[in-house]
């Protein structure tokens, strides 16, 4: 019975994968990766119950955590690095406070 959510999550992962590959902007990709991470958390939680080892939840939390931190890191990078403007019209990041 746990199969239903698992399949749903896998299918939606596949759809996210398509979005991540297609882009078109870097932000779309970051969003897909972030969303993919959330799906992974859910998948692991469900899988943990499927195999009867709820200790897997530690793992799910680590994923949630790493997902958050790497998203922030990536964003910081797009803001200060020079790469983000590749497909966008790059404008100067505004000064410290607007």
């Amino acid at each position, binding site marked *: 019975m746990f199969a239903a959510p698992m399949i749903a999550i896998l299918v939606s992962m596949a*759809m996210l994968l398509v979005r991540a590959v297609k882009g078109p902007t870097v932000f779309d990709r970051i969003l897909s990766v972030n969303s993919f991470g959330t799906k992974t958390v859910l998948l692991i939680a469900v899988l943990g119950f499927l195999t009867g080892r709820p200790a897997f939840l530690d793992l799910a*939390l680590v994923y*949630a955590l790493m997902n958050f931190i790497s998203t922030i890191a990536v964003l910081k990078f797009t803001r200060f690095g020079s790469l983000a403007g590749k497909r966008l019209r790059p*404008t100067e990041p505004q000064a410290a406070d607007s």
Partner: protein
Amino acid sequence: MPGALDILSWACLLAGSFFALVSSLAMLRLPDFYSRVHGASISDTMGAGLILLGLVFQAGLSLVTVKLGLVLMFLVITGPTSSHTLAKAAYRLGLDPQLRSKEENASSQN
């Protein structure tokens, strides 16, 4: 024997799966980045919430429930934070949202 709790749990899990699917579909269908953020946030809230809630019903009252709750809490705190930061970064770097004014909208709906 499937008790009421079991049924509730499965209802939650199935509904959560449904929303997870809708979320990904939204990611594919919606036209621009900003609207896709909305799509992603479906799965962050409803998808994750319902699936984890379903698992809570499975687990019964134990430490596992607490852990599930904490995972959900973490997702709820960090989810909006990262999607906001993402939207903001895009906005500041000059990615223009695809907007439709009210008039156009009205005419396209007619």
